């Protein structure tokens, strides 16, 4: 630790980079051994048969089987619906937040982030109760005189649970984008004779597009790779890729196949995020995530 406080930033001496390397070593070790190595193992295993021979069979099986193609399709569909749901609720909410005092904003932001800070299991369990046969939704429906339909273990239940968690990831970049819009633009447009709706449509909306795009990317890819919430709220009937990674790995014990499904998932989600990050670095992106 003794060298940490050194302030002189002279030539790049050997001892200086040694200090840096030494300080970073634990983190490097953690990520080399517990992140890079497992991911490599995963990729390597996905090209193997159960006995260890090289094969492309796992991918052929995944892409060739209409059932698994359906799973992939359904995963993308649920992710897209969640993204749209977050946008529909998140955009007006971000607009509402924009006009509030910093105090109110801070509280509402905390409220928005609260689902992320509560145990996933408990959060999903809460929705199980809310949407369950003895829950408040069913009670209200009964009280009105409607026989409550099955609210759980379908795409809608997963959608509700996912929008609940993901809303923050949509609203935060949106708020960032909205905050950066020059506040004199809308009055200027109004002064030129534009009605409020036109101002929104022609100025606010296009200028907040980067935030929308960022939010959408994050929500989409995080939803596509979520396991716990869909597993609890959707059960085995809602067929999503993470669920199959899990069952193949722990129930069927077909590790190479689980690895292949996992790798497809990485390509779909991480590829999307990294591509987006690159896009940002090229333009002067102003969007936040991870």
């Amino acid at each position: 630790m003794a060298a940490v406080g050194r302030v002189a930033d002279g030539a790049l001496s050997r001892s200086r980079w040694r200090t840096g390397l030494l300080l970073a070593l634990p983190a490097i070790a953690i990520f080399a051994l517990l992140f890079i190595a497992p991911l490599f193992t995963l990729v390597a295993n996905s090209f193997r048969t159960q006995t260890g021979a090289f094969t492309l069979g796992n991918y052929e099986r995944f892409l060739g089987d209409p059932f698994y193609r359906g799973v992939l399709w359904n995963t993308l569909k649920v992710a897209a619906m969640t993204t749209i749901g977050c946008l529909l609720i998140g955009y007006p909410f971000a607009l509402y937040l924009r006009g509030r005092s910093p105090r109110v904003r801070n509280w509402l932001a905390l409220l928005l982030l609260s689902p992320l800070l509560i145990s996933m299991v408990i959060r999903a369990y809460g929705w199980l109760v809310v949407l369950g046969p003895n829950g408040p939704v069913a009670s209200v429906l009964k009280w009105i005189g409607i026989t409550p339909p099955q609210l759980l273990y379908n795409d809608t239940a997963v959608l509700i649970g996912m929008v609940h968690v993901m809303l923050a990831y949509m609203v935060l970049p949106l708020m960032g984008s909205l905050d950066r819009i020059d506040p004199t633009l809308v009055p200027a447009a109004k002064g030129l004779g534009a009605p409020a709706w036109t101002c929104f449509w022609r100025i606010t909306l296009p200028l907040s597009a980067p935030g929308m795009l960022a939010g959408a990317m994050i929500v989409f890819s995080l939803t596509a790779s979520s396991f716990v919430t869909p597993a609890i709220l959707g059960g085995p009937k809602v067929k999503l890729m993470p669920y199959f990674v899990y069952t193949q790995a722990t129930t069927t014990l077909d590790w190479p196949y689980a690895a292949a499904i996992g790798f497809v998932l990485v390509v779909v989600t991480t590829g999307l995020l990294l591509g987006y990050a690159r896009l940002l670095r090229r333009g002067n992106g102003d969007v936040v995530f991870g």
Partner: protein
Amino acid sequence: MTRLLGRVFAALVGLFLVAPVLVTVASSLTTTRYVTFPPQGITLHWYAEVFRKEEFLSSFALSAGVALAAAAVSAVVGLACGLAIHRHRFPGRGALEAVLSGAFAVPTIVLGIGLLQWFAQMGLASSAFTLLLAHLVLTVPYTVRLVLAGLAGLDRSAEKAAAGLGAAPFLVFWHVTLPAVRGPLIGGAFFAFITSFDDLTVALFVVTTDLQTLPVRIFNYMQYDYDPTVTAIGTLMVLFAAVAVVVIERFVGVARLFGADAEQHR
């Protein structure tokens, strides 16, 4: 009119956000043997039930132990790594930064199965220690990021000033550098704690039947039982998280954890 509409909308969103927690907490008090909302009657029976269930208590101990270790290790590793990245050049620095930011983008479930297969290949039997190792991958990027934000806010001249006033390098670190990252470190440690404590996805792959963290235990319990015990545990965990949130908010701001403020990101 528009104002009122906005308020109603915001209130509805707020209700949506708190609904699962609200309902969980309320229905933990029910006297019925099944979960129902609104609760019928008021009893603390289910809380007593939680403490009577041996397996929940041992799972809590395991989760808390691993989470504490994860918090402590992440803080130390995050501090060292943050300092290295912020003020040193060394071979592999760029790669490390890329991995740290890329780690957020890899699905947890993929990490889980990757670790499962890698540990098996290495012949590492699942234990509290392997669970801790797995959780570090989830928590260290956050602490590094927060430390970096703290260091970015520190005027390097303050360190020069301290040195000029006669402080030896270690004293400069102790009196000037460390206080600047104290808040981020405490906030980061608490966040590491709840991340580890709440993790289900990775734990599902790393645990065995006799080594179950609290979330895994609850997850499995839910498959068979539908009594209000889980709501009682859930309430306790929410309280737990609330304390952590207050601490994090106090020291770094929750929004910052998720990259909501622009400055620290640039």
